[in-house]
């Protein structure tokens, strides 16, 4: 996939309904549930052994950059808007994952020597998205600061969420993926459907790394 070079500013592209997004080609990504055998606790493996994981099976992604910031627009169908902890439900969420080092494995969210960086948006976050790192399942840690902005909008059964971040984050060399125009990086996506009890490792994900090229 390609992050198209555009001229629009962040304040424009952060609006999921901005007409500028119409100029950016969409790619549809097939999603699947995370394997139950890989869930990090015996309780979770047992209690989800006969429950379907990964409610959202298709994700539409658009990506762009304006030489300063990179943007992703994620769209998926979800008939239930969950933006808080109501009853037994969880807030809906979305994540974008990058390897921080070489061949970090996707399914295990990295490993000890090969960390990954995720941008995590959740429908109940007041503002923006978290920047997290992980080096294996169950090791997700939020970094103190996050340079990731995000804005979500739910309308007529569809979530549209924009992530935005400066291409480079100089003060987070070890904690945030560093991007530049003309470069290619691996990227993966995850979606949580809160009314199906999806949270933590219970989610749908894009199963393999995709190659994302930032147009030079």
């Amino acid at each position, binding site marked *: 996939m390609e992050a198209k070079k555009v001229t629009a500013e962040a304040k424009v592209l952060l609006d999921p309904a901005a007409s500028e997004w119409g100029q950016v080609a969409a790619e549809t990504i097939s999603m699947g549930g995370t394997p139950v055998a890989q*869930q*990090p*606790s*015996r*309780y*979770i493996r*047992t*209690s989800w052994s006969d429950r379907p994981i990964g409610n959202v099976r298709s994700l539409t992604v658009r990506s762009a950059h304006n030489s300063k910031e990179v943007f992703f627009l994620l769209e998926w169908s979800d008939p239930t808007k969950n933006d808080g*902890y109501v*009853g*037994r439900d*969880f807030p809906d969420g979305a994540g974008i994952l990058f390897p921080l080092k070489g061949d970090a494995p996707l399914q295990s969210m990295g490993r000890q020597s090969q960390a990954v960086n995720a941008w995590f948006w959740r429908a*109940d976050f007041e503002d923006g998205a978290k920047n997290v790192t992980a080096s294996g*399942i*169950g090791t*997700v840690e939020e970094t103190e600061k996050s340079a990731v902005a995000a804005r979500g909008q739910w309308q007529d059964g569809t979530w549209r969420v924009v992530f935005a971040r400066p291409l480079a984050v100089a003060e987070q060399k070890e904690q945030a993926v560093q991007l530049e125009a003309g470069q290619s990086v691996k990227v993966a996506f995850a979606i949580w459907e809160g009314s199906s009890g999806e*949270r*933590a*490792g219970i989610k749908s994900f894009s199963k393999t790394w995709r190659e994302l090229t930032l147009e030079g």
Partner: protein
Amino acid sequence: MVISKEDLMKSERQAAMVFDLNKCIGCQTCSVACKVLWTREDGMDYQWWCTVNTQPGRGAPKDWEQMGGGYRDGVPNPGIIPTREECGGGWDFNYDEVFYGGKGRSVHLHPIGEAPTWGPNWDEDQGGGEYPNSFFFYLPRLCNHCTRPVCVEACPRNAMYKRNEDGVVLRDETRCRGYRFCLEACPYKKIYFNYAKKISQHCIFCFPRIEKGVAPACARQCPGRLVFVGFLDDVDGPIHKLVREWEVAIPLHPEYGTGPNVFYIPPLAPYRLNEDGSIDETTPRIPTEYLEKLFGPRVNKALDTLKAEMAKTKNGGKSDLMNMLIVYHWHELFGPFTKDPAELTWK
């Protein structure tokens, strides 16, 4: 470093409590003592780490015994998350209107907003049975600080653990992400979600108090003086004697498989009355099957021992067990935790 659940669950010693249900008057002082001390912050308004419910009853949260969790044949058993509505409570009342609005005589105190449908002691004093053989008793409940805590087992982030020195089950709130797997897994439904902090929380056995030799608030404040606190391995302490030697203190729902460390002296009840008003000495008013359902089959032996020891004293004899349960000296309840919190300096 890989941390195993076994490591997180083990402890060298185990602190425990015994509640003598024959003395509990359902006054809720334990509930309030805990509430005032620990759950007054935002997001905790509906949390009651200690609750007292009338049995038989649907309890708190509503119908918690039907919510699953625990272990079955050693395997974690799926459970459901109790909702805020099922817990109830945390209501705001029209205090301003009644007390300061000049309407004290025309308006009565009521919760603001939607009418509540359940609360922490919603079915208080309803009980069971039919007059003249109706019956009820009170059951105080808190986190059982289990020997095999399935909440610890459930957490995907290893945020929960048993403290090595006393087996108290704690949570590292900086690791907790509010995924609520622990709420699902706990069969006693004694973990609460904090809606402000978006993490889960539960009874901490007043660990900052016990570290200073002070008994937990629920135990120390109990006007009925019915809560014993101590270490299970302290062979001279009442906990060991009641649980291990006399075997009159037994856990609630042992079949849940988590090995609770809160124990109960089961309730004795008056005999049934026949229709002609005579006493039926062969039938207890609280049905045995009901007590077995709550405390397992060991409840029968416990009740038999209690009855036999009571009979001994009635006949002029001496019973160490009865003396222990009478608690002639208040401090005998608290094992190594007899310090007065008012005499300590708290940081």
